[in-house]
């Protein structure tokens, strides 16, 4: 372990942990509003460490959706990590198995982006550097989750301070983040229409799966463009 590398990694991640803090707090507050205890929210942050999917899980739990659908949705939202872990393989191949376990557990969007950047620039991606970067995001994520949970418990009714509206807006922002992808508009239109129709006909648990599958089938059926694929996994 190199202390200098660890500190360098942690420094690099410091601004990110500041910008992630509101989302940790948002998760904690929303989790409590949707019926999780602070302890459960904390365990979820400790074991998943993936903000968007944690919020999706909480939202679906609030809608009383079947557990296996919730788990599947969490998997779907986190699916992008498969591309990330494939892309960073060349730079972490020399890690020990235990180090690899930790490495992939801590793999987040910024961690992926910075690791790839460092590796492609010819810099050495050491485990110390990676760990410093990762822990600088992981530890504050836990702290802000608990703080948000305590805050949410003090507030009581989330509608009173408008927390309830933040979740759909947050998901909308995530959707918009994919707008450069192939078939974005048709997929969103199809999934949106199917989920709304599903919501009003077969009811709440199923509109999520129906909408998601409809969008995927449409994407598979549309003519395959010669897109940049994931550009050798460089999608950041």
């Amino acid at each position, binding site marked *: 372990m190199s202390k200098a590398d660890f500190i360098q990694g942690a420094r690099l991640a410091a601004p990110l942990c500041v910008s992630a803090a509101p989302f940790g707090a948002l998760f904690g507050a929303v989790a409590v509003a949707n019926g999780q*205890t602070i302890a459960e929210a904390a365990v979820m942050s400790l074991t998943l460490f993936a903000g968007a*999917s944690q919020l999706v*899980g909480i939202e679906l739990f609030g809608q009383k959706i079947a557990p296996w659908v919730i788990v599947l949705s969490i998997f779907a939202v986190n699916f992008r990590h498969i591309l*990330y872990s494939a892309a960073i393989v060349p730079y972490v191949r020399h890690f020990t198995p235990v180090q690899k376990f930790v490495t992939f557990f801590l793999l987040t969007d910024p961690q992926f982006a910075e690791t790839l950047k460092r590796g492609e620039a010819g810099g050495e991606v050491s485990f110390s550097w990676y760990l410093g970067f990762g822990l600088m995001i992981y530890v504050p994520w836990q702290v802000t989750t608990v703080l948000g949970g305590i805050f949410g418990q003090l507030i009581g009714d989330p*509608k009173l301070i408008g927390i309830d509206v933040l979740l*759909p807006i947050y998901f909308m922002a995530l*959707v918009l983040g994919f707008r450069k992808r192939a078939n974005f508009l048709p997929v969103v239109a199809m999934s949106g229409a199917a989920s*709304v129709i599903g919501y009003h006909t077969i009811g709440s648990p199923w509109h999520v799966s129906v909408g998601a599958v409809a969008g995927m089938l449409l*994407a598979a059926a549309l003519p395959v463009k010669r897109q940049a694929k994931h550009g050798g996994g460089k999608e950041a």
Partner: protein
Amino acid sequence: MGAWFNTEMMLIILGGAIATFLTRIGGYVLITQMKTIPPRLEAALNAVPAAVLTTLVAPAFFTGGPDVQVAMAAALIASLRLSMLPMLAVGWCAVMAMRYWFGA
């Protein structure tokens, strides 16, 4: 367990944690033995995140009250120019304004 943890919730969290870790290590596992993904399968997989997330947004809009609809519309317009946090702030201000000034 008791008041701190609920068994069903803990099972969901455990399942979610395993699912998440599988996605994180999945690319590493695949790349050591993968050939190529069929293009249509890749197109479908590529559509997964937007498709799933849209199902959480669209019903929230169409079943929401005017307060929620105005807030989401305002945030959508804000997103053309602003990043995530300011966008959330715009939506939040809109919903609070609707609730407290217009009683929506």
